[in-house]
């Protein structure tokens, strides 16, 4: 399974590396989202600093939707999905590979976004350990749930609009927990930020396990 996962992750990342869709479209989009948040808050500096963790994770959520749609749209052209199905790779491996590819892209995107909130919202990044740990866990969770739901909606007639409707409420706990962890790390809340990592880890574990178990059945059907 792990070898298959590496093959699929390598393939997806190579496709992204060559097409540069993530770099040329998704990264600028997410930075524009940050700018728009600035307009929405009327450039109120103290408010923006306070809200920065939540806005950061909302931008990750929006970009994550695009990344998941992208990872399945590269399979929809030229019968690539059928080739993948007949390639003899383990479905669980394909799932993990896609999750890794989406998570790596999102983590890179988060680096850009972190620079974005420092420059645009004047956030001061403190508590690097907590920031990084919660970012890795929640990004894996977003990728795992995204790939599982992406596979669910892939075979439907209305996948572009169905995926956000399915995924956004599902990812609500991740946005909540990641935001709270970041707020604690940046010193905006008195609570213990590490407590939220438990929720993030649980969510990520459920979706990784669910995806590994069900991806074969989903690929057969869609």
């Amino acid at each position, binding site marked *: 399974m792990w070898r298959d996962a590496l093959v699929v992750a390598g393939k997806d990342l190579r496709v992204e590396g060559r097409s540069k869709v993530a770099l040329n479209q998704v990264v600028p989009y997410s930075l524009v989202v940050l700018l728009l948040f600035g307009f929405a808050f009327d450039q109120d500096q103290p408010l923006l600093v306070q809200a920065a963790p939540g806005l950061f994770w909302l931008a990750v959520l929006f970009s994550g939707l695009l990344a998941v749609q992208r990872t399945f749209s590269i399979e929809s052209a030229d019968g690539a999905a059928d080739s993948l199905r007949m390639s003899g790779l383990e479905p669980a491996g394909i799932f993990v590979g896609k999750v890794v590819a989406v998570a790596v892209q999102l983590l890179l995107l988060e680096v850009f976004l972190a620079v974005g909130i420092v420059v645009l919202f004047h956030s001061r990044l403190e508590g690097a350990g907590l920031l990084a740990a919660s970012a890795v866990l929640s990004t894996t969770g977003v990728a795992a749930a995204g790939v599982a739901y992406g596979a*669910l*909606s892939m*075979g*439907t*007639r*209305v*996948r572009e609009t*169905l995926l956000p*409707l*399915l995924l*956004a*409420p*599902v990812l*609500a706990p991740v946005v909540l927990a990641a935001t709270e962890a970041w707020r604690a790390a940046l010193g905006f809340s008195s609570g213990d930020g590490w407590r939220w990592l438990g929720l993030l880890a649980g969510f990520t574990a*459920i979706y990784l396990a*669910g995806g590994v178990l*069900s991806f074969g*059945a*989903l690929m057969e*059907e*869609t």
Partner: protein
Amino acid sequence: MRYPQASGSSRLTRVLGWSALAALALNTWWGLWLSPPDVVQGQFVRMLYIHPAVATMCYAGFGVCALGSVAWLWPRLRSPRWDRLAVAGAEVGAVFCFATLVTGSIWGRASWGVWWTWDARLTLTAILFALSLGYLALRRSIDNPHSRALASSMVAVLMALTVVVDHYATVWFVTLHQNETLFQPDPTIHGWQLATMLVSFLAFGLVFAWMMVHRYRLEVLEERYEREGFTSALEARRSEALPERRVEVPAR
């Protein structure tokens, strides 16, 4: 294969429907006239005779949906019946979930002074409603019955987890929403209030059962239409070609 009546009604559902209506009338009468205003909440206490019962039926609907979905996913139990039960539960649950949000919002305005507050249970109920809309949208967008049942049962299992979190939200998180009133060793309400509340559970329970039976039947009829619709359309076209209008091809 035997089909239930095409009319979508039977003696059982008629009795069920009329009993639901009668119980609702009784609930209205007791709730608005017979039961006294509350010491603390005054007249607003009358929401007690709608909101908890409606919220319970919302949970019941999603619970039925989850059970049906798990049963469908279980290979030895797999049958289209479970899938029909799941969709009926989800749709009726979604209706009651919306009613829960609306009645809760009205009650919140009356007793807390706001239509909405960012409280764990309220927020999770709203998320649950969004999840159920996603579930129903997913079902509508897949034509193959087997794929539809598979994909939707997976989503339904997740919804069930949310219901559990939702229910315990008042215990786990600090929230404005009150805790259990009724199901505890020494209920905190008595007399007319308790009796009326029990009637409301009976009334909305009957409404729930009536809606479930009809939604299940509708699903059976829709499946039958999908299966037989093409054949009957073909037969209709064939019968249009009457013998006297048929053009004979001249022999060479």
